[in-house]
């Protein structure tokens, strides 16, 4: 590439976290007036890369060159001052301030010798920026009152107000409707016409192909390749994204025996803002995976099945009887367990010991006189059984759970549900934030549990987990069923293609 024309270039950029090279010698560049799509599976290193550019992480090696000059960021402010704005999925807006105040936060025009905010000028300047981008937005409305798409626009306006020459957008359309997506597209194209360089991260391949000029694929921390959109195809990109999925864990579990009894039957199931008309059957001893990227509704579906969020429509029967699950307690009573994807906020009881975390669901059953006196011996017996079965490593039952490793915490949460003798177990992202060794162990445990007759529904954003672990995998895209694979028909490229809305199949 001819030097000097890039807006931003990274040279051998590297970032290592304990045990993993998140970004590995990445050479990447983006030009003025270019939309550069950045794609890759979860864990490929995209997020780390943009966080380095945004000044969140300092790199361990390599350089960042902005407009021909090497830059080193020790904070997000310095990155912003160099002309880079990063719009993260979770926005950086203050909900209780107006659109205009958010755009100019910390830089409000002042009056009365710099003591008061000059709201007239503030609103006028904000309106001016919104007008240049043709954003139909009232500068005086509160951010808490506007839609996600409109918040996206506010972030973009904020970036422009900083005179940013490079805007990095992390999955801007994941949770938007089709109409909103079109509007954001227009704005992004408008930015390109104004000479702004854009790095566009998306899970939806068709968007990348519609919008971008070039596309770069990352995998396992490395950049696989950068291609001009005109000279590549979706199939090529998918192939680059997937690479070789190593069959790491239990290479071939052998043919699973023929049809089993159904345990959980779900018909015409809909959840607001998540899924529409989903039907499936979970059999005894089966591991069923649901795959889908952000915005596919997978998490909403599984949360609703357990009663965490309400369903909109649909019928569920369990062991052949129609059931109503309105609250988690209903599901637990039926014999359904649940392990959250959000260990910290919805799973762990951080102030409590491992023992108390483990027995919290069944503690009443472990007591005399309707819960009046806890039977210590029974509680310790449950603890010992789960500790041995899941091989939890800890100092002792009274150790506080927050001092365990992520993998062991996850085992405690799985153990918590196993103590209820559940027949079905729903797991969201069972190995998120867990090191490689513990991942393999949790996979082995889940397989063993299934072999002993437990039915498992799980969802994961990690490809190897979806390819290797389940007996069957249903792919959702934008709330609807897009594909289904069995062990025999599983194909990692087709799976990825279905997840990102490329329904033709990888070899089509």
């Amino acid at each position, binding site marked *: 590439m001819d030097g000097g024309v890039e807006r931003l270039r990274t040279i051998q950029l590297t970032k290592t976290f304990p045990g993993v090279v998140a970004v590995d010698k990445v050479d990447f560049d983006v030009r003025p007036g270019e939309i550069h799509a950045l794609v890759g599976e979860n864990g490929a290193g995209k997020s780390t890369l943009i966080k380095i550019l945004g000044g969140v992480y300092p790199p361990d090696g390599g350089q960042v060159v902005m407009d021909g000059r090497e830059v080193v960021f020790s904070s997000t402010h310095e990155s912003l001052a160099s002309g880079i704005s990063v719009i993260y999925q979770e926005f950086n807006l203050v909900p209780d301030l107006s659109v205009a105040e958010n755009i100019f936060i910390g830089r409000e025009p002042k009056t009365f010798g710099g003591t008061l905010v000059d709201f007239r000028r503030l609103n006028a300047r904000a309106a001016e920026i919104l007008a240049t981008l043709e954003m139909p937005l009232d500068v005086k409305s509160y951010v808490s009152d506007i839609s996600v798409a409109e918040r996206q626009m506010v972030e973009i306006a904020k970036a422009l107000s900083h005179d940013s020459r490079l805007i990095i957008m992390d999955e801007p359309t994941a949770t938007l409707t089709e109409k909103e997506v079109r509007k954001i597209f227009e704005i992004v194209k408008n930015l390109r016409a104004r000479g702004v360089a854009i790095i566009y991260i998306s899970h939806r391949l068709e968007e990348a192909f519609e919008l971008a000029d070039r596309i770069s694929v990352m995998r396992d921390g490395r950049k696989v390749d950068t291609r001009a959109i005109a000279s590549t195809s979706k199939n090529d990109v998918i192939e680059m994204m997937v690479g070789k999925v190593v069959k790491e864990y239990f290479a071939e579990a052998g043919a699973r025996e023929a049809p089993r009894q159904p345990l959980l039957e779900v018909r015409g199931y809909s959840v607001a803002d998540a899924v529409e008309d989903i039907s499936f059957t979970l059999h005894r001893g089966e591991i069923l995976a649901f795959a889908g990227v952000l915005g596919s509704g997978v998490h909403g579906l599984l949360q609703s099945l*357990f009663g*965490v969020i309400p369903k909109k429509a649909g019928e569920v029967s369990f062991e052949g009887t129609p059931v109503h699950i309105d*609250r*988690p*307690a209903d*599901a*637990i*009573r039926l014999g359904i367990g*649940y392990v*959250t994807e959000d260990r910290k*906020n*919805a*799973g*762990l*009881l*951080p*102030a*409590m010991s491992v023992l*108390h975390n483990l*027995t*919290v*669901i069944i*503690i*009443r059953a*472990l*007591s005399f006189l309707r*819960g*009046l*006196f*806890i039977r210590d011996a029974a509680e310790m017996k449950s603890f010992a059984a789960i500790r041995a079965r899941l091989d939890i490593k800890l100092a002792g039952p009274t150790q506080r759970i927050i*001092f365990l490793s992520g993998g062991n915490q996850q085992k405690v949460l799985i153990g*918590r549900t196993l103590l209820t003798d559940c027949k079905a177990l729903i797991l969201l992202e069972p190995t998120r934030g867990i090191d490689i060794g513990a991942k393999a162990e949790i996979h082995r445990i889940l397989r063993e549990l299934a072999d002993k007759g437990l039915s498992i529904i799980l969802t994961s954003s990690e490809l190897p987990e979806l390819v290797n672990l389940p007996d069957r995998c249903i792919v959702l895209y934008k709330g609807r069923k897009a594909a289904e694979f069995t062990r025999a028909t599983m194909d990692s490229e087709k799976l990825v293609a279905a997840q990102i809305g490329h329904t033709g199949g990888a070899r089509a």
Partner: protein
Amino acid sequence: MIRFLKLYEKFGIVIFIALGSIFLVSVTPNFLKLDTILNILAQAAHGAIVGFGMTMALTSGGFDLSVESIMALSSVFMAILIPVIGIPMAILVSVLIGSLVGVLNGLIIAKLKVNPLITTLSTATIIKGVALLVAGGRMIVIMQKRFMAIGTGKLLGIPVPIYLMALFFGLFYLVVYRSSFGRHVAAVGSNESAARISGLNVDLVKIGVYVLVAFTGAVASVIRTSQALIGMPSMSPGFVLVVLTITILGGTSLAGGRGNLWGTLLAAIFVSMIYYGLNLINVQVFYQMLAVGLVLMLALFIEGLRVRYLQAAKAKGIKV
């Protein structure tokens, strides 16, 4: 050092009591007399009993500012009812009425999802108003001298409030540490969403907690009313702050999930000791509040240092 800090988390209050004792012994020879000690313990009773309830509220991640008003309401009803239905029934009914305020608090907090601070602040004001209305704005003198036995009587040479304090400690010990309800309270205080996903009836747990706090308030009111022989619609102003001081000084976390009943008991005794000791050396009552406040500030300061030290040790890779 780390071992010491872990011990401090549990028994820091013992150090305060030891230092306080040394101070009091050095300023007055009367301190080590049995009478003095029994007196200090008896004076600690009502603070400790409400402290047990407050420990539970903080463990559940909540708060109760209305105990003071609940005490006033129960006190007024006792004074009115004793001549009408006799002492035992009057106690029963007024404790029941006090506990009902807890039902109200619990319902508002659990069902309407109003912040406990705001809820109990408003019920505190309302209930105090009700107490004043019922009493017609006056103190009501209780003529039945027998009623005094509860607050000032002695059994086998030991003041009755000490027995009550011991009884309630035992009761709350069972509830907090030995019952599934206590476990559920800690779970709700530790992480409400996790508790909900674990199938716990979070609303019921919260209502239960506020009923228990109100109950302790009403019982403390029986002791105080009996000691004064007056139904007081404006009983013990500022008492709720003393109770919070006791609970926090005892090591119960404001963040929820971890209650320390032993700490509360010892802190109540410690606060009573300060009051008594300063009285002995003729320090004005204003300075007593000041002293308790300063001790609380010191305790929180040390706690802050402790947590930071442990975090720093953890960051350096030292096992904590």
